């Protein structure tokens, strides 16, 4: 049923070459045998009318199996790095055309992702077959632990964590509530108690009359707050590692031409014979560099904001 999803009929594009150009060329190293794209695409096309653009796309995809040097100028003039002239791309299209093109491309992305998912399933099956018994460990996902200094954790280690935590808590409660008072444990420096400590420091003796409930509350609160802080710091550091350093995860950099304002100040001077005083005429117009957005593509993460521009989609890794 899933493959009955039919790409919405693509409008006859005014510039089919441009449409085709927008599909990035496959990386040269990826050539795991002949991929039967043409067959799959055939099923998906179904009864939809096929424009010249789509057919060209199919032709390209069916040759995806052959290793081809990146940047094959014959089929595409597409360049992934943005430049001041990229706002001219697709400039001739009408608004309805643009909408339809967007819809058809989103459909194609959806279908391609599904294909990737199935291919990854097959790939996983093949590699696990060759590796044999090591399937066990690879199926357990490795979750980085949020407790500082602890290595990776997993649902198995959670049991250990529960056990250790509970025993610690019970132990401390027993110790603090029962054992220490019974033994009259004095944990100050040199075996002094809190009272002795206050007396030696020559501080007012009321301080030594601290209420035990208040004391335990304060101690507990300090412990909890510092623990939460450590966990948060570690979390932020991990997220930062995944983030693109150049754009801080936003995917964009401030446009230098308009200093991130989006507007350019154009001053034209002219002189009128009668009016000598005012001969400067300034107009604000949209910045040509960023077309008014105030920001431009970050070329390192290609607008994804993450250090690795892969699709973060569960369909990429169906076994995780």
């Amino acid at each position: 049923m899933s493959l009955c999803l039919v790409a919405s009929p693509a409008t006859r594009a005014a510039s089919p070459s441009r449409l085709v150009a927008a599909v990035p060329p496959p990386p040269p190293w990826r050539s795991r045998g002949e991929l039967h794209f043409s067959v799959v695409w055939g099923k998906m096309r179904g009864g939809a009318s096929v424009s010249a653009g789509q057919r060209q796309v199919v032709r390209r995809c069916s040759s995806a199996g052959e290793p081809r040097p990146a940047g094959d100028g014959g089929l595409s003039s597409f360049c992934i790095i943005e430049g001041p002239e990229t706002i001219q791309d697709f400039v001739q299209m009408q608004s309805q055309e643009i909408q339809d093109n967007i819809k058809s491309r989103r459909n194609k992305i959806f279908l391609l992702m599904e294909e990737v998912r199935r291919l990854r399933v097959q790939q996983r099956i093949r590699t696990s077959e060759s590796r044999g018994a090591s399937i066990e460990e690879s199926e357990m996902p490795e979750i980085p632990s949020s407790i500082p200094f602890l290595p990776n954790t997993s649902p198995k280690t959670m049991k250990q964590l529960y056990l250790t935590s509970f025993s610690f808590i019970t132990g401390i409660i027993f110790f603090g509530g029962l054992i220490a008072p019974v033994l009259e444990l004095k944990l100050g420096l040199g075996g002094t108690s809190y009272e002795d400590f206050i007396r030696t420091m020559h501080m007012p003796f009321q301080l030594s009359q601290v209420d035990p409930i208040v004391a335990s509350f304060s101690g507990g609160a300090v412990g909890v707050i510092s623990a939460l802080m450590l966990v948060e710091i570690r979390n932020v550091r991990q997220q930062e590692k995944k983030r693109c350093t150049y754009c801080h995860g936003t995917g964009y950099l401030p446009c230098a031409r308009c200093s991130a304002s989006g507007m350019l100040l154009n001053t034209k001077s002219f002189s009128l014979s009668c009016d000598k005083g005012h001969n400067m005429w300034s107009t604000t117009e949209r910045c040509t560099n960023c077309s008014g957005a105030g920001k431009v593509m970050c070329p390192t993460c290609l607008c994804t904001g993450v250090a690795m521009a892969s699709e973060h989609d569960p369909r990429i890794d169906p076994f995780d």
Partner: protein
Amino acid sequence: MAASSSSALWTAHHHLFLRPSNTTHRRRPVPPSAAVRPLAASLVATAPVAAATRRTAAEEAVYEVVMRQAALVEEAAAPTRRRWAEDAVAGWGLLADAYDRCGEVCAEYAKTFYLGTQLMTAERRKAVWAIYVWCRRTDELVDGPNSSYITPKALDRWEKRLEDLFEGRPYDMYDAALSDTVSKFPVDIQPFKDMIEGMRLDLWKSRYRSFDELYLYCYYVAGTVGLMTVPVMGIAPDSKASTESVYNAALALGIANQLTNILRDVGEDSRRGRIYLPLDELAEAGLTEDDIFRGKVTDKWRKFMKGQIHRARLFFDEAEKGVVHLDSASRWPVLASLWLYRQILDAIEANDYDNFTKRAYVNKAKKLLSLPVAYARAAVAS
């Protein structure tokens, strides 16, 4: 014959950087004996084939760039390049932010280098950060996580952006920082273009047949950095060395650094299917590409590596001679970084030349120890 042609190429530069020079160059033919021999020529003598004064095509090309940069420095009494004047008032805040971000990127990716920049003056620090970020961004285009999307056309566009920023029309924030830097310091555009050329090489070239080819590649990706930063570091006004010799030394430092990288990362590169060692020298040592891919350390390998390390050390020695002619404030950081990087070669030797599986690195203690010694050496040199 080569010597006379080289003297014809020479323009006698005895005006030094920062001195108000006469506006016309005085072209005086320099007798060949006084000419500073290009670095590689002296090293070519160690290679079995070439004569001592023969210069290869690669060295010629590189040499011409050095000359042009030196000439640019000479005529830059006042920077004629247009400053980034558009929206000058609005741009101020953005520029300070841009430089700060450059510093952040530098601190993130090159911690030792970042510490080194702390030893420089504030203006130089910012300039070096801006240059570092541009070089790193360029390198990440072909070596980073998204390199599979990069085509030669993408590099062409990157080059167009470079030309725009040199003319005062930067595209984004980091370009703006570099644009400001090149308007303050007399940096030539050619080393930057050459670095992009080096990236183009990396897109398709994975084998180097001779040291000449490798030298050109090392120039493209590392020698250019030396040429970019010398105008920023500045040459000492009272130095008696010619501008070209300082540039040659900077070039040598870049080449030495790159050779060290190559020798350290043999295993890593081979796993990506790349060999950055000259194939003819490998064959001479009786080694094949398979030996490298297999990654076993044999006596043949040790002998081969000894020769390569020796050559890298020669480049370091040439570079060190030029450091003393830099501006006094810049000597310490450059010398320190030179020593630190040279210690990586020692680490490779200590690993018994196993650069397939072991990563040669210099531990923190050694790094810290080099600093005061480098300081003393830099202060003494005059």
